């Protein structure tokens, strides 16, 4: 019933992660933490990151929001746990550039794994903030770490 456009936005991997997200529930031992709100829709995320020797050991979060924002936080957790802080910062920047490209730049699987599914959001300008929320919050949490 739904159009191909809608299926491209809400890919199965997004729906699956939104229903049962990874990293939910903040775990003690974190070294940096940040909280962000999307004032347009009231979505909120509180994200904690544990960094040890320049490597991200844990990303956990709490919050509520739409399927895109919840899946994005979940995918981010799996993708960047184990990455160096420098690598994580670089990939957050690449993610931001692609998401703001209005569909011009695709996410590559090598850097983003399953999170490439979020690339479809870049064609929906009103939803880019939903996908970006967790990534921006991680960036801010790393800055406090």
């Amino acid at each position, binding site marked *: *019933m*739904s*159009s191909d*456009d*809608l299926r491209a*936005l*809400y890919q199965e991997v997004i*729906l699956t992660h939104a*229903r049962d997200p990874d990293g939910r529930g903040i775990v003690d031992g974190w070294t940096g933490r940040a909280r962000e709100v999307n004032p*347009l*829709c*009231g*979505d*909120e995320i509180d994200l904690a990151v544990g960094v040890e020797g320049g490597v991200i050991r844990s990303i956990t979060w709490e919050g*509520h*929001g*739409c*399927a*895109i924002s*919840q899946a994005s936080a979940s995918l981010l957790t799996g993708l960047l746990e184990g990455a160096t802080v420098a690598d994580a910062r670089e990939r957050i920047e690449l993610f931001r550039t692609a998401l703001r490209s209005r569909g011009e730049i695709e996410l590559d699987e090598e850097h983003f794994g399953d999170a490439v599914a979020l690339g479809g959001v870049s064609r*929906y300008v009103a*939803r880019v903030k*939903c996908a970006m929320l967790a990534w921006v919050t991680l960036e801010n949490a790393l800055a406090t770490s």
Partner: protein
Amino acid sequence: MHATTPELTDDEVRTIRGDFPILAETVNGHPLAYLDSAATTQKPRAVLDAEREFLERRNAAVHRGAHTLAAEATEEFEAARATVAAFVGADVGEIVWTSNATEGINLVAYGLSNAAFGDGDPALAVGPGDEIVVTELEHHANLIPWQQLARRTGATLRYLPVDDDGALRLDLVGEVITDRTRVVAVSHVSNVLGIVNPVAVLVEAAHRAGAIVVLDACQSAPHAPLDLGELDVDIAVFSGHKMLGPTGVGVLYGKRTLLEALPPFLTGGSMITTVTLDRAEFMAPPQRFEAGTQRVSQAIGLAAAVRYLDAVGMPRIAAHDRQLGARLAEGLDAIRGVRVLGPVGVERVGLAGFDLAGVHPHDLGQVLDDRGIAIRVGHHCAQPLHRRLGLGASARASAALYTTDDEVDRFLDAVDEAAGFFGVRS
């Protein structure tokens, strides 16, 4: 009284739709079903033409200049005021043009604190020991200006709570509205719940306490006949763009004696009599509250909107609207997983706020948009009410005189299918 007013027929609604060019648009490959009229209504050609006609033939600044266009523009601007006054049961001198309803509420809130500085009638001054009462279901526009007034003056902000369904707790009116109360601010119709609040009860309590009543009529003015004189509120505000008119124009109604006592909010040109370098004397209302160059074409557009509504007939629009509201609420209620917000069995306009279990409103809105159906999602500028209802956000479908049963049914089908799309049902 309601039951005897005939609804608009399908043919009449079809004719009305022909007057709104945008309703023929296609969105994402589907005919547009515009169910976001509570955010802003679409505009009929009569409104667009009135603005264009004025701008092409009579445009001039009003209340100044001696040339022909200035005189014609002033005459038409003031005629628009009279048209709007008659539409809401007010005298022409009781109607102040504002940019929108938000500015109207701020005008009153700042006027009340300016009274403390010796402007206007000192009896209006609000200060420590005084109380300002709002309700838990207000739009932020009818909450934050009062929070700020309390902060500026040392007055106390209190609120009338709602029950679990969102109905005002009338049993607490006597506790909340007391002889310390100076202002009671309430919306006529909730922009989230679509229910009509029992304004008469609050007016009576407020007046008994010696307080003024400020009514947010944004969601009632487009939906049903509005007689502000009969409601006996002291102040009322509404927005042009929510009642077929242009953006950039709103209306503040105030009882004449109150407007005469109230000091100005914005000051500058066009609102003064005598000015020296040290001080100024202010004009009588309504000009006292209309500083600077006015939104002339917008006011003229709003008058055209009011004439359009009058020609269709507000009682019949109200009947159509109630029917659509019932169709929305009952249809949503029949969908598994949907919680319709607001108490049942009370008067409702053509608006339904709801929650679909397991589906965030933004995702629901996206699925509906894919089918050309426009609804509002989010907190609708009413975060405290959402918090009280245990929600962060909700979805809202709202109708207007041009809305059809078919659009409501398309919307209901799409909500039902969205639950399947997101896999929240086994």
